[in-house]
């Protein structure tokens, strides 16, 4: 196109710009379409895969965890909706819902023994025992997923980390930093004494006793006055395995 001076030239330039814009939009649309097509292909392949391996996903925890990872990588959440395609296809929503109900059961049953705080490992063990008949074992990973679903229901379930361990809390008890530190310390031998707490955390008598008594009142600790050294020990069932024999 020849550049022409004057108004004519300006009009031509405008028309040219318009044309470029249209081409540009076209290109963008083509790209989007292409992308949509690729995604559709990918999605249908993923669905095929899921359909084919539905059983494996339900029965094999390692496979299940890898499947989740793969979904996460492409931004798919099979648990996002209980009514969605994925949930219907895999029944995965049901699987975790079931798990959630069993977890609630176990937490309620053990509450009087551990005050509503249970070791994730122990919870998992108890779950596996419960599910032995169905031969569908579960991993801690599965538990965590099920619990996060429970949280959405506002059920007061929460996973807290104390030292190296994960504890599942099923009561509204709020643990403050002092309590956390004591629980952390208790993981060593399963118990602590007032003396130990004072010494290792550099706390005053009052602070140590306060924290321990609160934990006792919440049902998270049990006292033991039976040692021959006469010192009272505070035991924490949630950091040991008290319910499985």
């Amino acid at each position, binding site marked *: 196109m020849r550049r022409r001076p004057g108004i004519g030239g300006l009009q031509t330039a405008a028309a040219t710009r318009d044309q470029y814009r249209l081409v540009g939009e076209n290109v963008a649309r083509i790209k989007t379409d292409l992308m949509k097509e690729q995604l559709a292909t990918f999605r249908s392949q993923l669905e095929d895969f899921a359909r084919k391996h539905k059983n494996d996903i339900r029965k094999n925890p390692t496979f299940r965890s890898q499947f989740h990872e793969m979904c996460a990588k492409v931004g798919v959440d099979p648990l996002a909706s209980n009514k969605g395609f994925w949930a219907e296809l895999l029944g995965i929503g049901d699987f975790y819902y079931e798990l959630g109900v069993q977890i609630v059961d176990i937490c309620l049953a053990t509450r*009087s*023994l551990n*005050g509503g705080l249970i070791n994730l490992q122990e919870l998992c063990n108890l779950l596996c025992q419960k599910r032995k008949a169905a031969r569908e074992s579960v991993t801690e990973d599965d538990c965590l997923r099920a619990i996060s679903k429970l949280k959405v229901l506002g059920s007061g379930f929460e996973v807290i980390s104390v030292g190296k361990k994960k504890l599942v809390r099923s009561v509204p008890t709020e643990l403050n930093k002092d309590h956390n530190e004591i629980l952390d310390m208790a993981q060593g031998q399963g*118990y602590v004494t007032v003396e130990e707490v004072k010494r290792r955390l550099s706390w005053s008598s009052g602070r140590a006793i306060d924290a321990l008594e609160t934990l*006792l*009142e919440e*049902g998270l600790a*049990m*006292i*033991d*006055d*039976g*040692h*021959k050294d006469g010192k009272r*020990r505070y*035991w924490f*069932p949630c950091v*040991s*395995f*008290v*319910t*499985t*024999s």
Partner: protein
Amino acid sequence: MQKLGDFKPPHFFNYPPYFTLQPLKDTQQKQVQLWKELILDYCRTQKIFVIGLEDDFPLFSNSAIERSLSHEARDIFLSGLVSDGRAEWMDKGHKKCLILWLRIQDWADCILRFVKDNGLEDSVMTVEEIRSGIESQGTELHGMDRTVLMRALRMLEQKGKLAMFKGSSADDEGVKFSA
């Protein structure tokens, strides 16, 4: 733990705090429940009928974890069983406790079953024979506590299922089962 022989105790028996009476009401309730069940279970499997509070009863201490139940704790657990109708104090001082891991009514049913199984209707037997005779072998009646047996027999007597009478020798009581 050799004191318990073949008996496999539940997990809490090896957890030290369970040997101390818990101050928190809910926890203590659970603790008492667990101990009551354990005591009944143990007595049933070992055929123990009487527990002396001050005795060296195997369940009252666990040498592996070096813990023992205080007198108060023992009293509370056994009193719990008494409230449930599964035990009776044999004295006011709570020194001895009769454990009814089968209630008197259950023992009575046992005896009736025994009579039926052995065709003993309308026949006579001594009290001693009921608990140590050949027929009793293999049943729960074998080796049972004489006091408990007498109580069950008297209960059945009141219901007209049998009649008791004194035998020829001093300590030999007899029983005539109804037809």
